[in-house]
């Protein structure tokens, strides 16, 4: 279906306006209030609104110009062209002329029109505005709605769209009413019985069954406990009875046994008294005997020890005597060695003095030689000093003739010559070669052949009227040169005068003489420095002082009883010193030997003395021990008597002891035979046992009474039966619960399968539309994808999501997109739907965009234009209404200006 032209008459602002629309892209533009939206609305009403009527819409069409609102529309549809004329109002009419067909009027025309447009009749009746908005709502984008989702406005064409999608996807219808009813029934059951997390809802059958099961189990447990308590009471009763019987028997037995044992224990007590007495007696004898034996043993021990000590002491005295002699000998050896060491010491001292005297003498001779050399050196220095004095005197008057002074003089001389030469160059020579008039220079006439050199400005008068001013070299410079020449000459004279010579040459001669004398003086000073006059004098003084000290040392070193002839020859003296030194070395050796000998003998003497001391000390101690033992022995003997007395006493004690012991053992034997200890233990055991049995008997009686009370039945109930019934109840509850649980699982399983099937079907059905949208989205966003979701019952496409996961951005619901993006996405979706639906309309459907994208930025507009252009190429007719035609530059749309 394609719009070709529209004529609007008496329609609001339009009196009579025709626009050509026979292009794929038409831009209708004009300023605000120029009637663009009215035109779009008029076309829409012509297509869908019942002509006859007086609804608000009809009334709103009326024009200030008067007359019946009319729209004449030419369009192609169903393979041919048609002209539609609709006049609106209470007497409105429709005429439809189709190529090669009879003209239709009224409702026949409207019916035919509806068929051609594939809609369900014309729109009329109440709620007309809303109805009209829905009609081709996805193709008619009114002002301010370009960002709304077309999923709502496609409502009327939903079933056509679904047919197209089913045809494209090869999918049969989504779901049947029975499918949906079964799913609804199962979902309702699920909602009634389960919470969102899949748990059974309170008061649902499953929940009730579960609670009943828990309650039944609890009842069974209670019944089991009650019965068990009763059974336990029966067991306790039996146990108590058995215990009572056992303890009564035990008690009787224990009493009988105890009586017999107590009779025997009386005899035991009598024997015990006897036993005590016998033991006391035996112990007294035993004590006395022990004392006797101990005293005897002590005496024997003393005697034995004395014998050993004495035998040990005898050889020790001889040994001490031998040590004493040895010690004395060693002391004598030591005295001798000490005397020898003292003699060697004296001899060495004398030899050391003599050697020292010779050493001092040699050094004195050497020092004398040094003193002679130093005196000679001093005389030479005196001579050099006299020469130095003389040259210094000669040099004094020539002091000013330095190289710098001569150079200055030469510079002054050169400057004077230069100044003179310059002056001469400036001068002007005037010569009169021929003249018929008088010539004067500065009033001074100059005659023929006369010359005059002018060095300064002068006036030349030729005749009486000619005066010429001559300025040689530029006047002032000549004056300066003259003055400079004179100053330079004066300066030279002044310089010569200052140093007292007549000429520069004379000054140069004087300077040469000064240089020669200076060289000589320098050489002399070097020699003097080398001679080091001060040090030489100092050395000489020190040498003389050392010589005096050496002579004093030699004198002191010579032993008093010795007379030595000291030669003045150094070599002889040195030989004598060598000799004396050798003698001293020999003396040293002799002394060391004597000293070593002394040490060795001293140590031997000390050791011998030490050995002697120890031996004597040991001997002393031994003697004291012997004395002490002797005293102790004496005391013991005094007390216990000699061995005979002691032996007799001991033998008598032994006999007494044996007798007492036999008497004691006899009584013990009788007690043993009676088993006294065992009897006592048994008696104790039986008494304790009887007490315990009595306690236990009491306890058992108590338990018996308690159990009997518990076992006494009121007859109100039968615990055994109650348990059986409660257990059977619990089993039935379990069975009921299992059945319901299984049934629930089966139903949920089925529901899940049905849901999955529906989900798969709707997903497949959405795909052709998604495939149609995706190229547009790629154009807009460079790659996002559409995700369309059908309502569970397959009645409509419920939602749209923009899948931007390719850019790691996730899924976005349409409503959460920005305004600009919504506009773009909505247009893409409209175009895709129109494309699919256009199949039933000769491959073409108009898409009207009234004042859309007014806020889109340039970048978005460019993309939208590409989108529109591509859609027009895909067969759609795009009508753009805008007051900003410049926004659509480059779209290649045909334009209609209002």
């Amino acid at each position, binding site marked *: 279906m394609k719009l070709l032209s529209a004529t609007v008459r008496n329609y609001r602002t339009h009196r009579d306006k025709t626009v050509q629309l026979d292009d794929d892209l038409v831009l209708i533009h004009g300023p605000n209030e120029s009637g663009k939206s009215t035109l779009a609305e008029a076309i829409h009403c012509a297509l869908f609104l019942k002509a006859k009527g007086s609804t608000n819409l009809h009334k709103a069409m009326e024009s200030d110009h008067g007359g019946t609102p009319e729209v004449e529309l030419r369009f192609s549809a169903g393979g041919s062209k048609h002209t539609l004329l609709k006049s609106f109002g209470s007497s409105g009419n429709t005429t439809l002329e189709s190529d090669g067909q009879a003209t239709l009027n009224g409702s026949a025309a409207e019916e035919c029109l509806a068929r051609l447009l594939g809609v369900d009749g014309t729109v009329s009746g109440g709620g007309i505005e809303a109805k009209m908005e829905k009609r081709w709502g996805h193709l008619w984008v009114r002002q301010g709605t370009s960002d709304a989702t077309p999923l709502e406005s496609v409502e009327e064409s939903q079933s056509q769209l679904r047919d197209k999608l089913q045809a494209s996807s090869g999918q049969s219808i989504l779901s049947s009413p029975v499918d949906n009813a079964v799913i609804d029934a199962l979902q309702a059951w699920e909602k009634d019985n389960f919470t969102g997390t899949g748990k059974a809802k309170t008061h649902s059958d499953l929940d009730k069954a579960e609670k009943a099961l828990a309650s039944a189990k609890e009842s069974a447990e209670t019944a089991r406990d009650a019965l068990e308590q009763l059974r336990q009471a029966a067991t306790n009763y039996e146990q108590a009875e058995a215990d009572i019987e056992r303890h009564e028997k035990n008690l009787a037995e224990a009493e009988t046994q105890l009586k017999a044992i107590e009779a025997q224990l009386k005899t035991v007590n009598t024997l015990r008294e006897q036993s005590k007495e016998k033991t006391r007696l035996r112990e007294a004898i035993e004590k006395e005997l022990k004392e006797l034996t101990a005293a005897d043993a002590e005496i024997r021990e003393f005697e034995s020890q004395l014998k050993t000590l004495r035998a040990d002491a005898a050889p020790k005295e001889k040994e001490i005597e031998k040590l004493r002699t040895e010690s004395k000998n060693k002391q004598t050896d030591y005295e001798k060695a000490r005397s020898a060491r003292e003699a060697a010491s004296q001899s060495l001292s004398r030899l050391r003095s003599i050697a020292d005297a010779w050493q001092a003498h040699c050094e004195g001779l050497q020092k004398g030689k040094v003193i002679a050399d130093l005196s000679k050196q001093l005389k030479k220095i005196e001579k050099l000093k006299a020469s130095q004095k003389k040259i210094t005197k000669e040099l004094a008057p020539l002091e000013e003739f330095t190289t710098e002074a001569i150079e200055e003089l030469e510079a002054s001389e050169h400057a004077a010559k230069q100044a003179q030469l310059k002056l001469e160059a400036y001068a002007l020579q005037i010569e009169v070669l021929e003249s018929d008039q008088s010539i004067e220079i500065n009033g001074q006439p100059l005659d023929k052949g006369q010359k005059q050199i002018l060095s300064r400005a002068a006036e030349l008068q030729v005749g009486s009227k000619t005066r010429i001013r001559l300025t040689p070299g530029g006047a002032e410079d000549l004056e300066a040169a003259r003055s400079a020449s004179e100053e330079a000459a004066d300066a030279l004279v002044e310089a010569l005068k200052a140093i007292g010579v007549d000429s520069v040459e004379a000054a140069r001669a004087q300077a040469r003489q000064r240089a020669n004398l200076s060289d000589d003086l320098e050489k002399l000073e070097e020699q003097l420095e080398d001679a080091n006059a001060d040090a030489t004098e100092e050395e000489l003084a020190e040498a003389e002082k050392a010589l005096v000290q050496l002579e004093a040392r030699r004198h002191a070193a010579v032993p008093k009883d010795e007379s030595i002839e000291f030669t003045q020859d150094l070599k002889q003296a040195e030989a004598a010193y060598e000799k004396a030194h050798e003698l001293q070395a020999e003396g040293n050796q002799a002394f060391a030997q004597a000293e070593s000998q002394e040490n060795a003998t001293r140590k031997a003497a000390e050791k011998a003395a030490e050995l002697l001391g120890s031996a004597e000390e040991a001997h002393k101690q031994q003697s004291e021990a012997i004395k002490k033992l002797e005293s102790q022995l004496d005391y013991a003997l005094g007390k216990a008597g000699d061995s005979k007395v002691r032996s007799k006493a001991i033998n008598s004690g032994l006999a007494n002891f044996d007798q007492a012991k036999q008497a004691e053992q006899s009584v013990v034997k009788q007690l043993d035979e009676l088993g006294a200890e065992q009897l006592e233990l048994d008696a104790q055991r039986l008494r304790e046992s009887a007490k315990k049995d009595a306690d236990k008997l009491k306890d058992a009686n108590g338990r018996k009474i308690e159990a009997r009370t518990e076992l*006494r039945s009121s007859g109100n109930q039968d615990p055994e039966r109650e348990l059986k019934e409660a257990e059977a109840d619990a089993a039935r509850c379990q069975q009921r619960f299992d059945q319901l649980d299984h049934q629930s699982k089966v139903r949920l399983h089925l529901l899940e399968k*049905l849901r999955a099937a529906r989900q798969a079907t709707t997903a497949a059905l959405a795909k052709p539309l998604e495939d149609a949208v995706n190229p547009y989205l790629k154009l807009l966003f460079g790659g996002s994808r559409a995700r369309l979701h059908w309502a569970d019952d397959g009645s409509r496409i419920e939602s749209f999501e923009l899948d931007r996961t390719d850019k790691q951005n996730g899924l976005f619901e349409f409503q959460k997109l920005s305004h600009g993006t919504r506009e773009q996405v909505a247009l893409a979706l409209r175009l895709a739907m129109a494309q699919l639906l256009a199949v039933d309309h000769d491959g073409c459907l108009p898409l009207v965009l009234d004042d859309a994208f007014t806020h889109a930025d340039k970048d978005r507009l460019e993309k939208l234009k590409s989108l529109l252009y591509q859609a027009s190429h895909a067969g759609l007719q795009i009508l753009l209404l805008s007051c900003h035609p410049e926004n659509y530059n480059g779209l290649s749309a045909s334009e209609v200006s209002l």
Partner: protein
Amino acid sequence: MKFLHTADWQIGKPFQSISDHAKRESLRKQRLDTLIALKSLIEKDKLDFVVVCGDLFDSWTPDAATVSGLCSAVGSLKVPVYAIPGNHDHGGPGCIWEQEFFLREKEQLAPNFHILLKPEPVVLESAVLLPCPLLRRHESEDPTEWLRNEPEGLPEELPRIVLAHGSTQGFSSSGEADSESGINRIELERLPKSSYDYIALGDWHGMKEIAPGAWFCGTSEQDRFAKGDSNQPGHVCIVEIENTGAAPKVTPHKTGTVGWHSPDDFHFTNDDDLETLESQIETFIGQQTNRDLLKVRVHGTLSFTGIESFEKLAESLRARLIRLDLDQDLQIEPSVEELNALTERQDPLIALVAQQLRDSMETDPLARDALRELQLQTRKVEA
């Protein structure tokens, strides 16, 4: 001399497996009615007395109403009734036999009732009773042990009747040989045969002479599904002993009225077998209601229709029978038509899911039930 030998009345048995309380109660009452009905037999055969060999009560702690019921029934028999306690109503501490309310009811309702709690001879006018009472639930000693040597001083001229309760080789109350082996075991072979004329036994619920002169009389009213055919529960024995040493003449008499049916396992090869099962059941219960109990195990496969019919049958039986003990191991195997009816539906989702479930029947344990649920839900929606 003639007497009635009975045992294992188990009055007060709860029949807890029956969910319907009224049915439970009627079954309990029937046990007492059967006792009361013995009166005509006693009168007709002019019996001297009745011996009851244990388990008169089901529990050792019966409630007062049960006690009164039993005392009333015993009292109605008029002749002396001698009883020993069995393992269910043993004579241990706290037992019913020494409870005050029992003693009171016995005195008032059944002065002819004698409960023998001691293993000692009871000399009657026409016979000597040798009771072997159980004094605890599980007695490890043989209760007849005291009779292994003939008690001294027994009158020679009177027939000697042993009353005992317990299992013997091959026969026990649970019906299984050697169950609870060693507990309440009676070793008959150790008793001197010539010393006793008749050994009246209780515990096993079937009726049988297990040794010459030694009889289990069984329970007078069946109380459980019998194992095997030779049990003959629901009887009492009329015993006649002409004189000491003569073989006793024993005549079983049927007393049971309730039908306890436990046919062999039933296998469904297909839905047609349902009819066979129905006719089999009809042979047991006919058209009557509330008189029978049925225990059956069914297995095999049924289609959706088959399982539905089976469920309806089970529903009817549950209503008609006192109890239906159904052990069901049925595989739902929808028929090709039933499957096609789902998979070829015009409803795309139902058809698709039905196909998926059909294809996963071997791997998805819930698939068959889910298919059936789908069929039921679809039917419900379309109804």
